[in-house]
C-alpha cells in the first residue's frame, strides 16, 4: 500500500502546478486582450486622422 503522506504531497504538488498554469494562462489572456484592444484603437485612430 502506498504511503498516504507521500500521496498527499504528490497531489499537492500537482495542484500547485495546475494553479500556476491557470494563473499563467489567465495572465496571458488578459495581456492578449489588452494588446488587441490597443491595436484596434491605434488602427481606428489612424483611420480617423487620415479622413
Amino acid at each position, binding site marked *: 500500500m502506498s504511503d498516504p503522506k507521500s500521496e498527499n504531497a504528490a*497531489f499537492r504538488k500537482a*495542484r500547485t502546478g495546475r494553479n500556476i498554469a491557470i494563473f499563467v494562462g489567465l495572465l496571458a*489572456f488578459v495581456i492578449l486582450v489588452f494588446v*488587441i484592444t490597443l491595436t484596434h484603437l491605434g488602427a481606428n485612430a489612424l483611420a480617423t486622422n487620415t479622413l
Partner: protein
Amino acid sequence: MSKTTTPELTPIAGAAVPARWQDYVQLLKPRVMSLVIFTALTGLVCANVPLSPVLAFTAVLCIAVGAGASGALNMWYDADIDALMRRTRGRPVPAGRVQGADALALGLTLSLFSVGIMGLAVNLLAAALLAFTIFFYAVVYTMWLKRATPQNIVIGGLAGALPPAVGWAAASGSTPLNAWLMVAIIFMWTPPHFWALSLTTSDDYERAGVPMMPVAKGEASTRLQILLYTLVLVPLALAPACTGLGGPVYLGIAALGGVAFIALAARLFVRKDRADAKRLFGFSILYLFALFAALLGEHLAGLHPLRLLALRFLG
C-alpha cells in the same frame, strides 16, 4: 493570528495519479496542433494581405487553441475506445489521470474562447469557419462517423483540412479558390496518410470495434484505395502552380514528391508489406510539410512568379 491551513487533499475517485498541468496540455493533442498551426500560418501568409502582427498572432493562436479544444472533446468522447487501443491507452482520460468531465469542460471552454476572440479581434468569417472546424471534428467525425463507417476519416478529414482556409479568411476576410485548393490538397492527402498508419495498427482498431478501412474492407482493399487516392492527390498538388498560388520551388517539390509518393503507394500495393505502410506514413508527413513549407517560403521571400511579373511591370 490564526494559522492558515490548506484543506486536506484527497485523490479523485478512480484517479490513480494526480492530474498534472502537462496532462491537460496532452488533451490538446500538441502534435496535431503543430501541423494545424503550420498549415493555417501558410494560408494566412499566402493571402498576401498586410495584417498587423498582433492580429496575425491572435488568429494563429485562436486556430491552435480551437484545434486543441476539438482534441480535448475527442479524448472525452473516445475515452472508452482509447482504453482498448495500445496507441491511445496512455492518454490522460483512459489512464485515469484526468476525469472525462474535466476534458469536456476544457474542450468547451477553449472552443468558446477561441471562436469568441477570433470573431471579436479578427473577423466573423474566420470565426465561423473555426467554429465549423471544431464542430466537424468533435461532432461529425468523433460522434457520428468514427464508429459508424469506414469512410470516417475520408469525410472527417475535412476538419483537419480547413485550417489554411481559416488562416486565409483571417488575413483577407474572404476565401478564394486558392484557399480551397489548399484545403483540397490536405483533404485528399488524409486518406492515404491515415490508412497507411491504420494498416499497422488495425489490430487495435479491431479490438476497439472501430470500422477503420483495413478492419471493415480488408488490407488489400485499403492498399488499393491508398493508391487511388494518391493518384488523385498528386495532380491536385500540382494545381497551385497553375492557379498563381505556387511558384517554381513549389512545382519542383510537388512533382518530385508526387513521383515518390506514387512509387511508395504502388510498392505498398504490390508487396503487401507493413514496413512499406510505415514508410509511406512517414513520407506522407514529409510530403505535406514540404508542400506547405514551399508555399510559405515562396510567399515570405516574394518568389511567387505572378508577384515577380507584377513587380517587373511596376518597376
